[in-house]
């Protein structure tokens, strides 16, 4: 029995130690078994990182993204196929459902094959646009590999991407050049806040179809930095989808190829870039986890010393208006195989909202301390002068980071009858305290005079009347 238990424990530990934060079941959709060799290094790297790879042809009968209504795999790599259709198991709706179940997808495109209609409509649904005609590819007459594409200029050599915005972390940075042979460029629609470019084409690149037998490219699909070679979508449930414009760049032959950029010999770093790309898409990087979520009342220094319970009550359900409240939250970031303390980008901050319908406070959280695998963020504030049902609410959504949306509900009550300041503590009330005092004193004097002066005269007067 004990042996069985420890076996189960080890099995669990093994599952936990898989590279990805969400799971290790990986499906690689590959039509031609012979093409498998071309991607062997990528697949071996993934297996070495702890993924259990299943390779299936889209035509396979047994292929399904779901099993018993739940996702059958945690991650999918969709490699380009010759056939135009992907079959009934891999429709656009299936992929969307897979994303809804928090599965992650890498879609690799190739200009040599027509993009399947399922992929086309999937990308259209996600507001990622690709050229509709087969064979369209990205060309750059300045950043090309002169060793392999001296004529066609369709093998792009690009440096690693910089951070998308200065207040974002860069999960795809590095030193060196990445080769993008015969890439299909994508553009992102303006409507979706969920999409983000990972690698933009240089400003001198453009997308065109070499089959157009014209000397001058008229009306290209897109030009310059509006073209993306790799773009990403992170859904609201943090499921990730990455579109890689060039499946060839994931193949063995470009993983450490000698290339020539403007007469200079360089070595392509595709293997490292592919690792970063798969790691991000399969939730090995950029995953945030919330640990402790604590709020408590600050009684003030004097009160805390006097009470026997030095540690305040954690997460009380009720506060009073104008209470001093401390708040703390632990946030970790998953990095390849372990949790690290999360440090936001220098000009960024995690914010706490104290909200009832609308936020009454929106405060930057400051890092208080670091543990081995978490940062403790904290802030203290005064509850607003408004009673009602409030939320401690953290809503942190950044490109390339999983979303944090944490809420704790508390009641904020008004002052109890005996919690108001006494009248004499408010100097403005002294005048009216004096008013009462004078009235009462005058009344006492009146009563005294009345009683003292009354008897003889008044009684006799009464009697005579």
């Amino acid at each position: 029995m004990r042996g069985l238990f420890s076996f189960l424990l080890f099995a669990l530990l093994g599952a936990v130690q898989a590279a990805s934060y969400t799971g290790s079941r990986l499906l690689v959709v590959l039509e031609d078994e012979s093409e498998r060799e071309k991607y062997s290094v990528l697949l071996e790297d993934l297996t070495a990182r702890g993924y259990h790879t299943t390779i299936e042809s889209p035509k396979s009968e047994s292929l399904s993204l779901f099993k018993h209504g739940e996702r059958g795999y945690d991650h999918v790599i969709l490699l380009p196929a010759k056939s135009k259709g992907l079959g009934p198991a891999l429709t656009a709706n299936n992929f969307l459902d897979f994303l809804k179940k928090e599965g992650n997808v890498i879609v690799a495109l190739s200009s040599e094959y027509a993009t399947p209609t399922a992929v086309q409509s999937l990308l259209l649904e996600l507001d990622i646009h690709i050229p509709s005609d087969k064979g369209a590819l990205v060309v750059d007459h300045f950043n090309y590999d002169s060793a392999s594409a001296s004529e066609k200029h369709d093998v792009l050599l690009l440096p690693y991407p910089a951070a998308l915005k200065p207040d974002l972390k860069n999960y795809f940075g590095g030193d060196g050049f990445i080769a993008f042979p015969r890439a299909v460029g994508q553009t992102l629609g303006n409507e979706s806040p969920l999409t983000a470019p990972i690698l933009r084409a240089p400003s001198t690149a453009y997308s065109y179809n070499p089959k157009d037998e014209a000397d001058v490219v008229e009306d290209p699909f897109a030009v310059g930095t509006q073209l993306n070679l790799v773009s990403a979508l992170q859904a609201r449930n943090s499921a990730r989808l990455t579109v890689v414009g060039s499946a060839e760049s994931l193949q063995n032959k470009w993983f450490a190829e000698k290339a020539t950029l403007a007469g200079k010999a360089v070595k392509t770093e595709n293997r490292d870039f592919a690792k970063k790309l798969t790691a991000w898409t399969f939730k090995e990087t950029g995953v945030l986890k919330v640990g402790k979520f604590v709020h408590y009342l600050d009684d003030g220094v004097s009160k805390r010393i006097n009470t026997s319970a030095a540690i305040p009550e954690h997460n009380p359900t009720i506060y009073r208006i104008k209470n001093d409240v401390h708040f703390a939250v632990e946030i970790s970031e998953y990095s390849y195989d372990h949790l690290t303390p999360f440090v936001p980008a220098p000009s960024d901050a995690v914010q706490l909202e104290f909200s009832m319908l609308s936020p009454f406070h929106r405060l930057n959280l400051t890092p208080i301390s670091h543990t081995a695998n978490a940062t403790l963020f904290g802030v203290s504030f005064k509850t607003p002068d408004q009673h009602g049902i409030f939320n401690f609410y953290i809503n942190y959504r950044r490109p390339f980071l999983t979303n944090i949306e944490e809420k704790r509900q508390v009641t904020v009550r008004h002052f109890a009858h005996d919690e108001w300041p006494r009248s004499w503590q408010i100097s403005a009330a002294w005048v009216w305290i004096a008013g009462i005092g004078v009235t009462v004193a005058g009344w006492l004097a009146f009563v005294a005079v009345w009683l003292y002066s009354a008897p003889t005269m008044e009684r006799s007067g009464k009697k005579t009347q």
Partner: protein
Amino acid sequence: MPPKSRASAPPAPPLPAKSSSASKSGGGSTSAQDIVQGIWSKYTAKTPQRVKLLDSFLAFLVVVGVLQFVYCVVVGNFPFNAFLSGFSATVGQFVLTASLRIQTNPENKAEFENTSHERAFADFIFASMLLHFFCVNFIN
């Protein structure tokens, strides 16, 4: 209060004559000062001492009340409950005192046959203490 004490100081008998002459002369002249003086002398002559005492207390309460109200208008009503409490103590005391004046005024004797002055005064004391209690409570 000095004019009042001066007025109450002279003995009673000569006053009616004076007032009658004053009223006569008042009937002759339309001077406002004469009218006021006539009223005043009549008041000092005919009013019992206890009613005068009540009247002076009422005047005092009016002064205190006006002072509080003017202060509130000029400076502001920040602890509003304090203002209400202070002002209503004065106003309430005025009302109670006025009631006592009505009940103990010899001129109203016919209407309060069954209410002795002692009873009226005891009611007044009780009501006033209740009022003060409420006001002190309300000002917190």
